[in-house]
């Protein structure tokens, strides 16, 4: 899956780093680094991270069928609603 984080929106809540640590990592106190190409086995974790981001800063594609994808679409506005 491809993903991008809008780091203007990101406020370092670290929910993603907690839910999908192989994709997202905090680097210092509030800066985030991430792998823009998540491996297939990360699908569920990535979907949860997208849904859990308090500022809805993560856009990912290729999440069809993942449990969290439904949740993120249900959040309505913002980039996460584009997660497919």
């Amino acid at each position, binding site marked *: 899956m491809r993903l991008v984080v809008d780091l203007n929106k990101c406020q370092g809540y670290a929910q993603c780093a907690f839910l999908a640590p192989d994709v997202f990592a905090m680097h210092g106190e509030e800066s985030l680094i991430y*792998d823009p190409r998540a491996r297939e086995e990360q699908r569920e974790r990535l979907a949860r991270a997208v849904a859990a981001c308090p500022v809805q800063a993560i856009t990912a594609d290729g999440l069809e069928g993942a449990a969290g994808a439904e949740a993120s679409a249900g959040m309505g506005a913002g980039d996460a609603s584009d997660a497919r």
Partner: protein
Amino acid sequence: MPADHLDWLRREGRIVVVGASLAGLRAAETLRAEGFTGSLTMIGDEPYEPYDRPPLSKGVLLGKASPLHTELPHRREIDAKWRLGVPATGLDLSAKRVRLADGDEVEYDRLLIATGVRARPWPKEDEARLDGVCVLRTREDAADLYRRLKAGPRRVFVIGAGFAGSEVASACREMGIEVTVAERAGGPLVGALGGVVGAVAADLAVENGVDLRTRVTVTSLEGDQAGRVRAVHLSDESTVEADVVVVSLGSVRNTDWLAGSGLGAGPRGIACDAGCRAFDFRGIVTDDVFVAGDVARSPHALFGYQFLSLEHWGNAVAQAETAAHNMICHGADRRPHLWMPAFWSSMFKVNIKSVGVPPMGEQIMIAQGSLAERRFVGVYGHKGRIVAAVSFDNTRWLEFYQRQIERGAPFPVEYPTVDRRPEGRQPVDAQFPDPSLPTHGPMVTMSGYSPADQQLVFHPARH
């Protein structure tokens, strides 16, 4: 524009997007999302689908991401014809045709130009060709630099302490590589954030083991007999041995292909109105050519209607969305591009973010936290108004300051803030360098009020 023509355009018109990166992709998605069902052609000089660049100097160099896999997620299907790996070489405004490097021509009813910028190369070509002299803009650049860093160079030399150069230096230190950074100004980041904040960035670099040389320029790069770079000569007559040199001197706008086209395009970018419509060189707005992203410069109501060029990720997205919307709607439904400038960087594990236009400020106040702790918010003022804010590891406050900027709140800051320190009660000179002196480019360029280089006579040779 008669309504039936617009209906026809939306239904079966031909839209061409030149530039297949972040702005181009987001524009294409917006066109489809807003109901454009005609033909869409995406032209890009790089042979890759749109990919994200910010990770190339951060996560990629830290080994968290592959330089070859930062492709951008798509928000929706765009059903486009892709012409990748083929640069556009010319534009015929009257015939509405884009010329391509392979000799092909593509006709359009509406055109979006999102050709962005490229890395400014080292100006001496023979030295720039030395093995080990790198720039960092494309994924190939990033793959090459990462490979060289992994090979364990004895020393990396970074020319220019803007954001990109500082991020490279930070990555080198995390990898345990010795690194020297040379900067013409008095400290890192001063073009973008001024000398007060630059001094903090300088301390941060030095504490992390960077050999920082300020107020010097690089006079020449020296190669060995095999054509590999081996040393860097500086204006203070010192010499530093290095086997990787990263040229980080800002960027050059990709407008060369428009020379002679009649558009108001030049080294500062392509001038457009707030609705993203390009000006021609006479300063008259076109109605079928739009611009978005790093290559655009457009007037901003919040900042005295000055024309701003913003090399910001968020600007590329927002301007692309606005341009795409305006390309396929009636005049009365058009929107202005009034995005609040914002960017981020991180270096030495410190998160640096900004809103507004810092170089417009003459003064700065540290409204929260302290410079010494490297956790603070600095507020920039211009003519009694707040025009920008910068945060070091304090991002959650920036939205508050963004609202202050939007409201034209007074400067000096009068309201009490959380964690206000005694030393932050008085504004001080923000210490931006004289803009007429060449230094690394600020990420925001204010280029005055004229849309077309203040000249009504067209001089192709100057572009």
